[in-house]
């Protein structure tokens, strides 16, 4: 018989609807705050209203007597056992980490810091009792301005330090041997452009407020938390609190978004564990949105001094980057490393011969900073894509022509950059050509000219961002060289059930990304089983015992590949048994579509389900073969993945009101081989919204007393549906060459790419008024002032990074 069998279409590449949706659209959810345990007590946390103060006394006596109150604890109660909120990224050997108590003991260093915790029978009773706590604060001067913070004689945030500078981290291509010395480029430059860009402070603002439930049981403790990192949290709780690791179980049930905001180990998690163990009762703490905005970590907040040099013909010759990065009051889990991730991305897609990057991490009396979607790479991408536009103006070149002249050509891959990374693949030409066509670039340019010529009150601006990023964190040896406290591998296990169904265990812990769907597609193809027969197990250290969790667009490019490796081991185990059952040699067997066939013997075949059943029965296995197909794999990537793309934005700016409207946003992203185009599109949409929000809408603002004035969703203005356009998204597919699926990460690309595309467009729209920069977010007021103000329009003063006093005036970046 030679009939051609109908082969099922590959799962990879299909826009499968998500398995996750069923329980989410019907409200059958397991958010941590949904959980109730018998005898559970509720926590409420008293937070410091002062940015910087000495705690002189805390009187809890009245609160203790309030209805329903079981106990009230302060830092004095836990000071000997609470340890420090962990920081796992000492970026330099001499990095100063003053320590971070979960409950303040002697001093508070930002408004929102935990000062006391009330334990009561109901949440309402706990919250009511907070007002019965009497705290005496002896105010200290707030430290808000990063440059002032490191000037001589500055007030110290922490009394146990000598300076507010935590670290200085330097990369110099001349010293590293990856490029030429920067000093030669700077001194010999034909053209030099310098800019100071401000990365305003942002708030991740995941929709589900953080929540933690702790159940002690003898020496054991189970922690449910709205976290991105159940596995890392387990290790860190063990290390921080001295609980043997095997006694700690962490579960991340349904988690409502993270965007980096649920990466750190939090004071509230540690406090909840301490209280539960002290009282030997289950406890729950769920933050309010206002608590979340003021105390969950913030992101960005950098002052970026950028110098780019070039020849007159537009060849970039050097890039010098100096950052001040606000750590806030304390170093959180990966906070110091976030700006350092940017070190490898300022050079972006360009062939830059000389490069220097210097970053100073600085303490202020503000909410600590840590990862927020993109983590260091959006900041870098913004700076390079903004200054490429300014360089183009200086040279009188078309901004896209300048980029084309300097980017790595398709045939030059793999390409080792001046920052020392090897980009495995890319095709910037293809993505750019497609994007230009989709947006109708030439027509828009013609319209722009027409509007300029006619002094139209509504001006058109066009912005470009030709970006790449490094993600799929990360090769462990690279993380080691950056002094990160852990590796970057991921674990997976596959369990073949007797009925032919499959359980896949992953150490990657999702919170909206669609792992259950995408990973099932990968396994279905690899093992030749049905998509619906694959179940994903995740987010519980008891059942998915090993992992490094979800951040840095790593789930597919690292966790997905671990699953591939585990599946391949299942196939190899099955091959021995198939050979035995078919009475054939292993080397004569072919495996495809879930069946082993004997080459050249049609009809002689056995399927994976039959093998699984045979293994379960174990009646007839070859000698010495264990009755199990189950396999696991721990995959350490050999390189990052480097998604790239071209984002183009057309904005209309009403010069009479300063209002910016995105007329069209087109992006062509290259994330390698697509596993699920539907999920990819969703990730890009959401990423764009957050990047555009940085450009136009969001900023965490402090007043001159160090109080967060954007402490609710009234003031911290997440975009609504009415604030955003529909995006045109498309893809090119240049497979990664460093993993067997050819995939690259997609979680952060939209956020990394979009912010400079929007700001470049806004500046392009109003450049004829003498504007060459605009502070973010580019609110109507700032844009109007930029248009109607006089003189130098560069963004310099008035950032919250500079200090609250000037922020509160929203002065729009008219100062020199």
């Amino acid at each position, binding site marked *: 018989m030679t009939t051609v069998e109908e082969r099922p279409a590959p799962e990879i590449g299909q826009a499968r609807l998500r398995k996750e949706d069923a329980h989410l659209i019907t*409200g059958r959810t397991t958010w941590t705050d949904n959980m109730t345990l018998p005898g559970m007590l509720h926590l409420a946390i008293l937070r410091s209203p002062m940015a910087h103060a000495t705690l002189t006394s805390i009187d809890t006596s009245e609160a203790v007597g309030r209805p329903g109150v079981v106990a009230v604890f302060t830092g004095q109660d836990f000071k000997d056992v609470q340890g420090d909120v962990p920081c796992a990224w000492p970026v330099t050997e001499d990095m100063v980490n003053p320590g971070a108590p979960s409950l303040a003991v002697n001093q508070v260093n930002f408004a929102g810091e935990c000062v006391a915790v009330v334990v009561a029978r109901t949440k309402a009773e706990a919250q009511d009792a907070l007002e019965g706590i009497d705290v005496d604060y002896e105010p200290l001067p707030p430290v808000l301005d990063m440059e002032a913070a490191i000037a001589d004689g500055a007030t110290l945030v922490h009394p146990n330090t000598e300076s507010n500078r935590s670290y200085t981290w330097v990369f110099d291509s001349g010293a590293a041997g990856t490029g030429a010395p920067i000093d030669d480029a700077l001194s010999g430059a034909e053209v030099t452009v310098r800019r100071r860009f401000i990365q305003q402070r942002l708030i991740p603002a995941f*929709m*589900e407020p953080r929540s933690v439930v702790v159940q002690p049981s003898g020496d054991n403790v189970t922690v449910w938390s709205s976290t991105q990192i159940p596995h890392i949290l387990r290790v860190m709780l063990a290390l921080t609190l001295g609980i043997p690791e095997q006694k700690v179980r962490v579960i991340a049930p349904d*988690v*409502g978004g993270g965007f980096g905001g649920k990466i750190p180990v939090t004071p509230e998690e540690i406090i909840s564990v301490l209280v539960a163990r002290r009282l030997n009762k289950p406890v729950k703490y769920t933050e309010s*949105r206002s608590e979340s905005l003021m105390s969950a970590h913030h992101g960005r907040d950098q002052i970026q001094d950028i110098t780019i040099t070039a020849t007159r013909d537009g060849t970039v010759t050097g890039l010098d980057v100096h950052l001040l990065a606000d750590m806030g009051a304390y170093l959180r889990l990966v906070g110091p490393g976030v700006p350092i991730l940017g070190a490898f991305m300022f050079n972006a897609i360009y062939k830059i011969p000389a490069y220097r990057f210097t970053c100073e991490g600085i303490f202020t009396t503000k909410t600590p900073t840590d990862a927020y979607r993109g983590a260091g790479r959006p900041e870098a991408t913004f700076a390079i894509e903004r200054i490429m536009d300014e360089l183009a103006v200086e040279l009188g070149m078309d901004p896209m022509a300048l980029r084309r002249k300097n980017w790595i050509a398709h045939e030059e891959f793999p390409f080792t950059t001046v920052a020392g990374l090897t980009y495995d693949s890319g095709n910037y030409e293809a993505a750019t050509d497609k994007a230009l066509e989709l947006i109708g670039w030439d027509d828009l340019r013609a319209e722009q000219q027409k509007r300029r010529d006619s002094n139209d009150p509504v001006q058109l601006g066009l912005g470009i961002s030709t970006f790449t990023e490094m993600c799929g964190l990360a090769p462990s040896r690279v993380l080691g060289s950056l002094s990160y406290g852990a590796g970057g591998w991921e674990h997976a296990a596959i369990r073949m059930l007797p009925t032919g169904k499959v359980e896949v265990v992953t150490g990657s812990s999702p919170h909206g*990304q669609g792992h259950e769907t995408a990973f099932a597609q990968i396994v279905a193809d690899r093992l030749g089983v049905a998509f619906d027969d694959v179940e994903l197990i995740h987010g519980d250290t008891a059942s998915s015992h090993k992992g490094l969790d979800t951040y840095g667009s790593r789930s597919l490019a690292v966790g997905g590949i671990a699953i591939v490796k585990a599946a391949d081991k299942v196939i190899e185990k099955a091959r021995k048994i198939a050979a035995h059952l078919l009475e054939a040699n292993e080397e004569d067997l072919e495996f495809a579509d879930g069946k082993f066939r004997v080459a050249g013997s049609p009809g002689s075949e056995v399927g994976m389900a039959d093998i699984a059943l045979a293994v379960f029965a174990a009646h007839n296995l070859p000698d010495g073969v264990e009755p199990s197909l189950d396999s696991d794999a721990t995959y350490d990537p050999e390189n990052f993945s480097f998604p790239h793309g071209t984002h183009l934005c057309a904005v209309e700016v009403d010069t009479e009101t300063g209002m910016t409207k995105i007329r069209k946003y087109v992006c062509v992203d290259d994330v390698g081989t697509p596993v699920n185009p539907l999920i990819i599109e969703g990730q890009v949409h959401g990423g764009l*919204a957050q990047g555009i929000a940085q450009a136009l809408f969001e900023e965490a603002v402090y007043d001159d007393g160090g109080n967060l004035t954007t402490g*609710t969703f009234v003031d911290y203005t997440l975009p609504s549906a*009415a604030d955003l356009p529909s995006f045109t998204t498309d893809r090119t597919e240049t497979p990664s060459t460093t993993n067997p699926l050819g995939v690259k990460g997609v979680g952060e690309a939209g956020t990394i790419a979009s912010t400079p595309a929007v700001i470049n467009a806004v500046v392009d729209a109003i450049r004829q008024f003498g504007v060459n920069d605009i502070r973010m977010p580019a609110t109507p007021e700032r844009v109007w002032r930029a248009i109607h103000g006089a003189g130098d329009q560069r963004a310099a003063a008035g950032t919250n990074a500079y200090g609250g006093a000037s922020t509160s005036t929203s002065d729009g970046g008219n100062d020199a």
Partner: protein
Amino acid sequence: MTKINVKVDGVAYSDEVEPRTLLVYYLREQLGKVGTVVGCDTSNCGACTVELDGRSVKSCTVLAVQADGGEVTTVEGLAGPDGTLDRVQQAFHEQHGLQCGFCTPGMIMAVRDLLRENPNPSEAEIREGIEGNLCRCTGYQNIVRAAQAAAGAKA
């Protein structure tokens, strides 16, 4: 404490509540209707949206006592007894209108209310119609598509 009688997702309840208790906490903590969630404390995010007597309300902005004698529908009460999804639920699934899913209960209720008022909304009308509900994951594009699909699916 005040006594209230309220029907939630078709079931009649009679309960004592504190006068200050918000409807959302009554639903979550007294009735165990945890499908409806709390996302903020200023009535901005809309995650807690439910239907009270046929109109959408943010249940963090309604006192439980105000629902006395009323009928509440939450996201948990939308699907039929056989599990058949409401057309808006179905559209959110088919159009990938959710990622983490935390805003989804409120979004679905808001879209239902929008379509009740305006069965064939334009894209702009949809965007304005759901601007009281925040989503951090989707960029709203597929939520808009879901609303369009649900409008088209109307019998």
